[in-house]
């Protein structure tokens, strides 16, 4: 049984000692290490290595900045009905600074952050949720009298590595959707000289964060990433290729409206706009809310929230293809294509008809077939 934060993970105490004091048995601990090894894709043979690293792990210092965001990522990652060891791990490592979860407020908290940053300079892990607004000198997000950009740059300068958690910290999310009035950008657009890991999603799954922290504690570095800077162990495959409804896609069985028979039978949501074929995410495997369910499992198409600029590129959320702009009424690709094809066919028909008409007239006037001429006779002769 996991106890709530009755006491903190103190300096000098190893992680295993702390777990024991919180009532976690050796067996539960080893199960957790095995699970993490599987999630990270490094194989169950790596379980002892993770356990060993945890036995020796001292409390890492983590600074958690919340910038221009909705706090949904904190909710998703930290708040669960029945905390798992992974949740506990996140709970205990995120103690130095997180302005939503901290009991204190105001100048005292800012002071604590400064103290933690200078005490662990170059060693602490920086977690960032929320984007950085750049327009109007960044006045759209101001914390403790300073802009998000200043706060981020200051915290990043002493960080060992940065976890950009959620779509906002990744690339800006909804506030960066066109026309992006606040000039919101992700962490990677502001900080260029630190290793940044993007834990994509709106919000991301807590397990990905846990596993990343486990990887960091075990190997002392961030896991391998894809072209978007997302950890490959989680974002290495498309939702479409791991989907529990994939068999219905291959069979040609599709939900056409949300209350049809296909929807009741759990068929593929491809035709109602599922972005699973364009989205790299571990949702079908890790799932949400203590592995209860996930959007497609619950009958809703994927919105593609782990992909950059999904508010612009994945919309309409309930349509297969993006709208094609430049028209007063937003039109679908097929409407435009069909209109052009019919237009071309009509043009061809008109051109053909005009050709026939002019040819008949021309031939009548210039190209009469003679009944009999001397030339004709010589040819036939």
């Amino acid at each position, binding site marked *: 049984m996991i106890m709530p934060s009755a006491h903190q993970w103190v300096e000098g105490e190893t992680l295993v000692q702390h777990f024991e004091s919180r009532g976690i048995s050796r067996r539960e601990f080893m199960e957790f290490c095995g699970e993490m090894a599987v999630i990270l894709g490094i194989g169950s043979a790596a379980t002892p290595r993770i356990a060993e690293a945890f036995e020796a792990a001292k409390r890492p210092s983590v600074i958690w900045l919340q910038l221009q965001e909705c706090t949904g990522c904190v909710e998703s990652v930290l708040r669960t009905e029945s905390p798992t060891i992974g949740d506990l791990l996140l709970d205990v490592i995120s103690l130095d600074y997180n302005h939503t979860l901290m009991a204190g407020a105001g100048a005292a908290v800012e002071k604590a952050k400064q103290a933690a940053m200078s005490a662990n300079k170059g060693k602490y892990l920086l977690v960032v949720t929320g984007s950085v607004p750049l327009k109007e000198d960044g006045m759209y997000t101001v914390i403790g009298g300073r802009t998000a950009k200043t706060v981020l740059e200051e915290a990043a300068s002493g960080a060992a590595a940065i976890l950009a958690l959620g779509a906002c910290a990744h690339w800006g999310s909804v506030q960066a959707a066109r026309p992006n009035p606040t000039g919101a950008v992700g962490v990677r657009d502001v900080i260029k000289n630190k290793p940044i890991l993007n834990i994509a999603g709106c919000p991301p799954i807590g397990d990905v964060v846990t596993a990343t922290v486990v990887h960091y504690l075990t190997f002392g570095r961030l896991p391998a990433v894809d072209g978007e800077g997302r950890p490959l162990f989680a974002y290495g495959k498309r939702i479409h290729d791991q989907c529990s409804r994939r068999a219905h896609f*291959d*069979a040609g069985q599709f939900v056409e409206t949300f209350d049809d028979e296909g929807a009741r039978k759990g068929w593929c949501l491809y035709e109602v706009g599922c972005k699973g074929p364009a989205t790299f995410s571990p949702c079908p495997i890790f799932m949400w809310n203590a592995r209860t369910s996930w959007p497609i499992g619950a009958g809703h198409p994927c919105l593609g929230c782990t992909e*950059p600029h999904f508010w612009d*590129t994945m919309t309409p959320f309930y349509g297969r293809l*993006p709208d*094609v702009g430049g028209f007063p009424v937003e039109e679908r690709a097929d409407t435009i294509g069909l209109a052009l*094809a019919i237009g071309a066919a009509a043009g*061809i028909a008109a051109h053909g008809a*005009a050709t026939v008409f002019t040819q008949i007239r021309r031939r009548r006037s210039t190209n009469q077939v003679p009944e009999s001429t001397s030339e004709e006779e010589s040819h036939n002769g």
Partner: protein
Amino acid sequence: MTTRVGALGGARGMLGRVQRVFARERGNFTWVYLWSAPIRAMHWIAAACILSLILTGFYIGRPYFATSGEASAHFLMGRVRFVHFAAAAVLVMTGIVRAYWLMVGNQFERLPALFPVTGKNISNLVKTAGSYLTFRPDKQPNFVGHNPMQQWSYTAVYVMAVVTVVTGFTLYGQSAPGSVIFRAFSWLPPLLGGLQGIRVIHHLMTWAFIIFIEMHVYFAIRSDYVERAGVVSSIITGGRYISTDHSYEDYDIAKVPSHPWPTGEHRTPGKGA
């Protein structure tokens, strides 16, 4: 013949009608060989591929058949996608052969034939377009091979094909991240608004091909009717008959030696000219 018709008495009017039905173009004609066998084969293989790619592509884009019952009993989308991918692979093969033939083909098949950029070509392009728009085939400059309008439109089709194939393979590669195809095209999605951007371009290209096919078939058949050019047969047999009474913008009849028919070999005009 006149006497025989005379013997038939009042059939002269009837013969006139028959002659109109079986009207002949008069003059001197010669047969020229234009399109090498590989070009013709690739044309028809590519046509079959594109047709099946359009049909299967529209199914993949918006499945127009549904199956019922257990999913395990069906593999409709799976098969359709297989046909789509296989046809795409064959289409790439025809593209490779065509690209090789851009280097080794005759003057009508080589790379410069895709880019008629000289002043004379541009003026002929304008004249050709003008003759189409004003319905005056008699004002159309004569070409043995493709006229500049055709040349540019086929160049455009090759560009369309490359765009469609590249976007298609980008989408195809997504199922196997880290594969050669995935890596080869991974630079593309960020430039074009992600995979959905790629998808909509691929989809719009399908419509572009449909519009091209409409116009291509129309102009080919129209040319056979109006210009008596025999171009439809030229992509089957490789050659067509041209009037030796005209001069041609891209072919000097006087310089190409003729061969007796039917025993002589048909000379590829491009190599002799």
